[in-house]
């Protein structure tokens, strides 16, 4: 009769974490950035149909890296969770925090109890009426949750890209500025021999949660609109010179 080998819990968890990390690092990065009127999401994705960024509810969006079938499954579960909650209570009662908790419990349970962890990393973001009300949660394969402010990078080379974003991002940037920054940073991930690339608009998947929209804040930016947003500004000013801050909103 054969006995199973003893594996220490530390080793078991470490193996699982390494396995998940490897799977996640293979994919292209996704960046999430706050801007003055909302939250922007961008990634390099040649597919028009297999999205990494999606709408969950009126003011909540979802972005993921890793294995497509696994995060697609979580996305659908999130839409069902949100719609069921909104139907039982009210649309106001669906929050990113609740969804992030449900995702965290799911990822955590799978990580510890199932034979294979989910090879995914997620961002759940909710846009508020004011910039101070924005919420961005980042969830890892093991169910840990981080409440992020400003910007998030997920996927391969997240550390390197995070450093670049930290240099370029500051509060109150406009949509045009954050998208230029996002595309620069995604291009800096480089190709196989580490060279900087400029990514054409057709290869990008870009979406925003726009706080100025009345109900459903999520909007994909594609085609001519995206090209226009990414085009160099007419005065040729490089992004490094900050434009004058937007006039303070009038109290009313």
């Amino acid at each position: 009769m054969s006995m199973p080998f003893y594996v220490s819990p530390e080793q078991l968890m470490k193996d699982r974490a390494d396995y998940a990390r490897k799977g996640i690092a293979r994919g292209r990065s996704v960046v999430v950035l706050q801007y003055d009127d909302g939250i922007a999401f961008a990634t390099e994705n040649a597919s028009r149909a297999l999205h990494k960024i999606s709408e969950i509810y009126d003011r909540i969006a979802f972005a993921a890296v890793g294995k497509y079938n696994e995060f697609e499954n979580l996305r659908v579960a999130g839409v069902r969770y949100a719609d069921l909650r909104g139907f039982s209570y009210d649309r106001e009662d669906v929050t990113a925090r609740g969804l992030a908790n449900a995702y965290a419990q799911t990822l955590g349970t799978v990580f510890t109890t199932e034979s294979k962890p989910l090879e995914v990393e997620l961002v759940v973001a909710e846009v508020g009426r004011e910039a101070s009300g924005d919420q961005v949660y980042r969830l890892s394969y093991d169910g840990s949750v981080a409440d992020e402010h400003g910007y998030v990078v997920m996927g391969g080379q997240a550390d390197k890209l995070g450093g670049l974003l930290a240099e370029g991002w500051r509060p109150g940037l406009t949509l045009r500025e954050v998208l230029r920054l996002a595309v620069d940073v995604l291009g800096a991930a480089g190709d196989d021999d580490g060279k900087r690339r400029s990514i054409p608009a057709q290869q990008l998947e870009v979406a925003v949660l726009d706080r100025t929209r009345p109900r459903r804040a999520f909007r994909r930016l594609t085609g001519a609109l995206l090209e226009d947003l990414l085009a160099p500004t007419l005065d040729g000013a490089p992004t490094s010179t900050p434009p004058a801050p937007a006039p303070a909103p009038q109290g009313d």
Partner: protein
Amino acid sequence: MAPPTPSPDRAASGRLPHAFTTPGSSSFVDFLAGYAPELLPGNRPVPAAEVSAPHGTTIVALAFDGGVVMAGDRRATMGSMIASREIEKVFPADEYSAVGIAGTAGLATELVRLFQLELEHYEKIEGSLLSLDGKANRLSTMIRGNLGLAMQGLAVVPLFAGFDLDRRVGRIFSYDVTGGRYEEHDHHAVGSGSVFARGSLKKLWRPGLDAAGGVRVAVEALVDAADDDSATGGPDSTRRIWPVVATVSEAGYLRVGHDELGDVVGEVEAERRASHADRGGAR
């Protein structure tokens, strides 16, 4: 298989229940039917005796060049009483369609909420819009589920209209309580005042109407219905409560604004007043 306990795994450790992560249909109603069937309107116990509940009345819809207009009066009745004078019975189903409901008001508004969610759910899961026929068929299925309640006098009869993005025209669908779906041409009306509204539509509707002309015809039809049907409310000039009128076209669902509608109502009333001016009324 897990034993069929009520609401399985709903409280299990805060993680998303298996029903949520099971791949399946893109329909929210189908999901509810499997996971929480008691939330579906058709799955509740049918009341033994007849129930008296507020009823909504007249809805009209008509096609114009490049879209449809849908309008509903603002009255709900309970027996011979007026239950509400400002109920709304015309709703956006999604960006390119509208649904108006006559019948039991409580069930109708719940059904509309579920139908709106059904369309939005599909759109989010699939990343594309249902075809107009697909939307009309989903509504048909939902009405069929309500047949048990309809037999107890709690019928819900919707009118569905939308802009067909493939054919680039406005289309209108009517239903019966058994879920039968019928495409209507040019114009239609449902509810207690529909007999009079249909007569009015027949005389006033003409091909080649524009959106403003369509809104005018819809308001006239509702005024005619209110004239002869006690359960249909006419425009209330005292409280400035106007019918709900919306157009659905390439630009999407647009509710006609309060002031704009006030002008249309004013014109219709002025015209009718003028036609009675010299005769002193029936004394």
